[in-house]
């Protein structure tokens, strides 16, 4: 394949990806619309939440604004139009547009999920590769048992246990929050302060995925090691390290990255619970607050935005996939 040709192919793929993204957003927006109508009670009351439900003027305004007397199809089209213009409705509890509330909290969530995702992928594959290369050893058995236990641990409980050990018992780490409040810090000290607050939420969120990726990488390495091209490499007299780094790792990574992309949704879901545990000021915490107040427009908006985050993480893994899959780079595919 020529260089130009492959560039065009990548361009085409990017366009089809973006089209997919738009389609998914529209499907989720439609789903949200249906959900509000399917909820028990008057849609205007659902949108207003418990706070506004007793105010007849607000309910009347809402019915007018959302055209609740018009046919469903007209309502749906105007709903989708609002979503496309990034108008996700209004939180009557917080008296602010939903999109403002979400954008304010999104960076903290992204920081948490992306860090956890990358760490889980890096450390998980490294540990899995070690275990796979030393299959049957004590190390391998320890890893296997540990990953089985982690896989069965509720994320939020793991977070609480970390708090119990590292904050309550040892006093090493701050038990909750994003930064130390009411102190003036230099930019570097501030960054370090945030990192210190991140250690436990990131660890609890990453742990399960780390276990999943490690198990996968382990079996993947064992499988690759038995293949002919590894035997050929050995026969050619390549050193052990070169075989592992140059031939085995890249090939073994492919299935792991595929699964990592599929798990992105679960990771983002886990972040919602973890943020609740650590009072991390992101979308998960906002979800919890919105649940307490039955602030429905906020919940709908969060679902839409987090779905977009997951799709973005999927795109990221696609990119990684392209970088590591040997067939992709040699142009044989």
């Amino acid at each position: 394949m020529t260089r130009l040709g492959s560039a065009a192919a990548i361009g085409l793929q990017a366009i089809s990806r973006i089209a997919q993204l738009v389609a998914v957003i529209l499907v989720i927006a439609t789903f949200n619309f249906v959900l509000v109508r399917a909820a028990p009670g008057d849609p205007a009351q659902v949108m207003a939440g418990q706070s506004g439900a007793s105010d007849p003027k607000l309910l009347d305004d809402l019915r007018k604004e959302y055209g609740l007397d018009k046919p469903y199809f007209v309502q749906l089209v105007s709903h989708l139009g609002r979503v496309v213009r990034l108008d996700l409705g209004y939180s009557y509890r917080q008296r602010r547009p939903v999109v403002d509330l979400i954008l304010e909290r999104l960076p903290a969530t992204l920081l948490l999920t992306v860090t956890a995702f990358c760490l889980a992928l890096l450390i998980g594959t490294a540990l899995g590769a070690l275990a796979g290369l030393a299959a049957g050893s004590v190390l391998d058995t320890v890893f296997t048992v540990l990953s089985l236990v982690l896989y069965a641990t509720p994320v939020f409980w793991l977070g609480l246990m970390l708090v119990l050990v590292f904050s309550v018992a040892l006093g090493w780490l701050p038990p909750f929050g994003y930064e130390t409040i009411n102190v003036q810090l230099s930019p570097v000290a501030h960054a370090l302060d945030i990192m210190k607050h991140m250690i436990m939420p990131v660890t609890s969120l990453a742990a399960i995925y780390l276990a999943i990726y490690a198990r996968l990488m382990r079996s993947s390495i064992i499988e690759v090691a038995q293949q002919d091209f590894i035997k050929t490499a050995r026969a050619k007299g390549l050193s052990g390290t070169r075989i592992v780094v140059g031939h085995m790792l890249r090939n073994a990574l492919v299935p792991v990255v595929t699964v990592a992309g599929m798990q992105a949704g679960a990771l983002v879901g886990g972040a919602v619970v973890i943020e609740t545990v650590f009072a991390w000021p992101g979308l998960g915490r906002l979800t919890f607050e919105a649940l307490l107040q039955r602030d429905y427009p906020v919940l709908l908006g969060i679902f839409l935005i987090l779905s977009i985050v997951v799709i973005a993480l999927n795109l990221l893994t696609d990119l990684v996939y392209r970088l590591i899959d040997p067939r992709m780079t040699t142009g044989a595919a």
Partner: protein
Amino acid sequence: METARAFLRHPSGMIGLLLLLVVVVVAITAPIVFPVSPWEMVGAPFTPPGEDGLWLGGDTLGRDVAAGVAYGARVSLLIGIASALAAMAIGVVIGAISGYFGGKVDLVLMRMTELFQTIPAFVLAILLVATFNPSLLTIILTIGAVSWPPLARLTRAEFLRLRHREFVEAALCQGERTWRIVLGHILPNAISPILVVTSLTVATAILLESALSFMGLGDPNLMSWGFMIGAGRTVIRNAWWMSVFPGLAILVTVLAINLFGEGLSDVLNPRVSRRRS
């Protein structure tokens, strides 16, 4: 019989089965061992474990944590199994239609499955339970509604594999009706991997339920492990036992089901399992 004997020789599968039996016994005997409801106050608030006859301690209101853990086993097993069955029902129907008919139907259904697999399932579950108000039924249906995609994909793959086998062609030639071919010929041959994945779904369903009740979206009438941990979260400095024991209960149960399910998978599909490990 052969399968049962093979399972007995599977060490981790047997550990899983034994642990699971312990959990089931605790769930069944809860009302006998703890005749007083787990919602009743039986001691002083914040009783530490081992004092006043409360081996796992008392909570903020002096309720017995051990009773809560025992009754929680009933809730977790019930919701776990029921929602896994719901997921199986949805997944098998969608997967069977997709795999049997193929073509455009398959394309549309699989796109839908992919979508459900991509979006954050837990956030969708929160939204669904919040919309229809938390109750035993809505929680089971919700967990079923977000857990079916792997089962649909598996069923589809099995149906694709079996669709053109001779016994199906023979049934077609004899003019048997589609639903009889699907239910009477293909499904029975595809059932063992479906059961394995369903058993593993029970574990993820229990984890999902615990996270929902931790977030305050459990059935308010049921004492569940997630709810107990959520209640213990704010007082973790004074009463570690309130969150430690229910969490351990979840861990042991989920671990048991995973070990059991994987053992079952090794015994029922030795070919697939060997390739995986």
